[in-house]
């Protein structure tokens, strides 16, 4: 039996005159994902993937389900337009034993077809009932909807839709710079931005010998997981020991966390500018730790030179963990090679910092020189 995969997309349909730009992007991304395994093309508001001979269709469906912008993936049987053939195809293609009720929906794109849609539905419904007397028709709330589409090239029949990830096609929303720490939150923040169609680079701050080589490896592993969703990623590894030591030696201890966040933000913004990114992304969630209070975020953002997105800002830890499991980053995130930045965490950090006070503290170190040094020593790794 010949099979074809129907790919439905949602939000893009709402676009105006630039709709085709998004559609073309989506087609390109799906082609990139499936490679030689299928022929991908667009017709009206549906995309089609025709599997090449010998390709495992289940795997193909799985691959397409990972592409952002895809709302539904539908495995479809293609057959002759003869009514008896359509009926036979449906009976062998759909596993009716799993359901109690059904309905048939017909779309007749080929208007030269001698029967009208309701008639076709009724005929096919009759054939199904004959083969499975146990089943009943329920047009309002069926367990399964069998769809028949009569087209120029043949009849398409399908029953089950599989959900895609939704969102927007990768590369349709520009590029962002993710602050990737190695914890649970930042990969999830990255995923959420990727889902909205951004390309992405990541910045990671590491402080040898206070953080280990293994912690760095872990961050690269997380970047690889994220890269599955973003289509490649460059990680900028910024050495940050000297900077932290200077702050610890010269600045008020209770300001250390916020000072560190501000310096990270400035470095990330500059690397973002150099890499052509238009925003910085962090995994902060309001009130989670001292640096994530409203006041602290305000003081941090005051030094940002571009928008800083925090897609997790309104989420609880539990929700974040559930998403981390879904995108497969959780198990890596919880590996115990945590950065021991804890060494630089003051016992009683300010939770309501005031910008004027923080700016005064910042004057005690040569911020600009330290930022320059960090950027110069940054190592770039493509994962």
């Amino acid at each position, binding site marked *: 039996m010949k099979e074809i995969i129907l790919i439905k997309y949602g939000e893009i349909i709402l676009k105006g005159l630039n709709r085709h730009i998004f559609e073309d992007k989506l087609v390109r991304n799906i082609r990139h994902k499936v490679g030689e395994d299928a022929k991908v093309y667009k017709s009206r508001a549906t995309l089609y993937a025709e599997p090449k001979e010998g390709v495992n269709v289940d795997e193909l469906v799985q691959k397409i389900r990972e592409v952002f912008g895809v709302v539904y993936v539908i495995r479809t049987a293609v057959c002759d337009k003869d009514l008896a053939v359509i009926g036979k195809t449906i009976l062998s293609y759909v596993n009716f034993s799993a359901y109690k009720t059904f309905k048939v929906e017909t779309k007749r794109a080929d208007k030269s077809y001698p029967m009208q849609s309701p008639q076709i539905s009724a005929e096919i419904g009759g054939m199904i009932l004959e083969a499975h007397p146990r089943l009943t028709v329920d047009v309002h709330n069926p367990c399964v909807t069998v769809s028949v589409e009569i087209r120029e090239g043949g009849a398409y029949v399908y029953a089950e839709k599989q959900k895609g990830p939704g969102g927007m096609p990768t590369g349709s929303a520009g590029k962002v710079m993710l602050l990737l720490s190695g914890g649970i939150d930042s990969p999830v923040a990255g995923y959420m931005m990727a889902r909205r169609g951004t390309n992405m680079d990541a910045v990671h701050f590491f402080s*040898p*010998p*206070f*953080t*280990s080589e293994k912690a760095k490896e872990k961050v690269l592993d997380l970047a690889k997981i994220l890269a599955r969703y973003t289509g490649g990623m460059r990680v900028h590894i910024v050495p940050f020991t000297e900077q932290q*030591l200077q702050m*610890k030696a010269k600045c008020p201890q209770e300001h250390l966390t916020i000072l560190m966040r501000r310096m990270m933000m400035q470095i990330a913004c500059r690397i973002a500018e150099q890499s052509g990114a238009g925003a910085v992304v962090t995994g902060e969630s309001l009130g989670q730790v001292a640096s994530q209070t409203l006041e602290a975020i305000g003081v941090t953002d005051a030094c940002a030179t571009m928008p800083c997105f925090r897609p997790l800002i309104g989420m609880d830890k539990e929700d974040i963990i559930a998403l981390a499991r879904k995108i497969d980053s959780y198990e890596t995130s919880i590996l*115990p090679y945590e950065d*021991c930045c804890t*060494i630089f965490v003051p016992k009683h950090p300010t939770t309501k910092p005031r910008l004027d006070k923080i700016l005064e503290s910042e004057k005690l170190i040569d911020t600009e020189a330290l930022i320059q040094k960090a950027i110069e020593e940054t190592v770039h790794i493509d994962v």
Partner: protein
Amino acid sequence: MIYLDNSATTRPSKKAMDAFLLTAETHFGNPSSVHTLGTDAAKILKNARNAVAKKMHTEAGNIVFTGGGTMADNLAVLGAVRPKMGGTVVTTAIEHPAVMNTCAALEKKGITVKYVKPEKDGNITPEAISEALTEDTQLVSVMHVNNETGAILPIEKIKAVMAGVCPKALLHSDCVQSFGKLPVLPETWGADLISCSAHKIHGLRGAGALYVRKGITLAPVIYGGGQERDICPGTENLPAIAAFGAACEEERNMEKVKVLSEMLLRGILEIPHVYVNSPEDRLPHILNVSFSAVPSEVVTNALSNAGICISGGSACAGARKEKSYVLRSMGVPYPDSGVRFSLSDENTEEEICETIKALKATIPMLYMALGIRS
């Protein structure tokens, strides 16, 4: 690169590698097969067994090859104790997880396990063991040398105190760290079960041995086709076992390790705020110190960046976040700062000088960074 993590694992020796390759490539038969390749393999197995037995001054018939030290410990402890008979197992609070966690498994089966605490210097006295013993003690399991501190425990004296209270109890000793470095003499000690491992003595991973005194029947833990007296059935890992035998036959320069170790200690003592966690009469191969409150992993990372490999506590703890329960049970001032230097006779004076130099350059910087004032 300077390798001072020999208690985690050692570099396989040339002879061990030769034996490994020759066996894997040429004598690849199954020792249980009756054809020439099989008999050939059986001969290699026999020679290796003789080599291990000789090192323990015992007969080859008492040696059972295992998949390594952990497996030997498991087979010994689980095999020696009959949960249905109840009673107690006496062990120490400083055993390797291979014994510690196996004992914990026995606790779940209803056995009472007593974990004897060490003295302040990390030693376990026969008196302390004696106090824990009862008439219904089934097994006493005490390691010969502690893997974190190098403390040498008095196995022979422990056997003596057992004779008075529970003469029928079995004595097991995890000798993974001492085998090949100190005399391991089950028959002199009167021990019933001894575990050791190949890769700690310049052999390869995947091979270990369990000495099982003649006449002792261990309850089966693994079921299989009868190899290794059915205590550790399964086709023998012959290449690794051959390498184990070869490693046993090599003479190691203990005096050199002692000289290097003392040199290292002298150098380290010149650094302020250092606490030596190893006892005075330790196994020279192992030296454990704390640099005040500098966390273990920070010192380890810093030395790693300088090309020197050491470990915080034990290598097995490195993968977990867990801190050293050994140092904690001793009550040393900075248990979370313990770092272990473990030497072999392949180390050189230059390497030790380098290491001292690196420590003297790094540690004061870390003190300053962490606000530890001199």
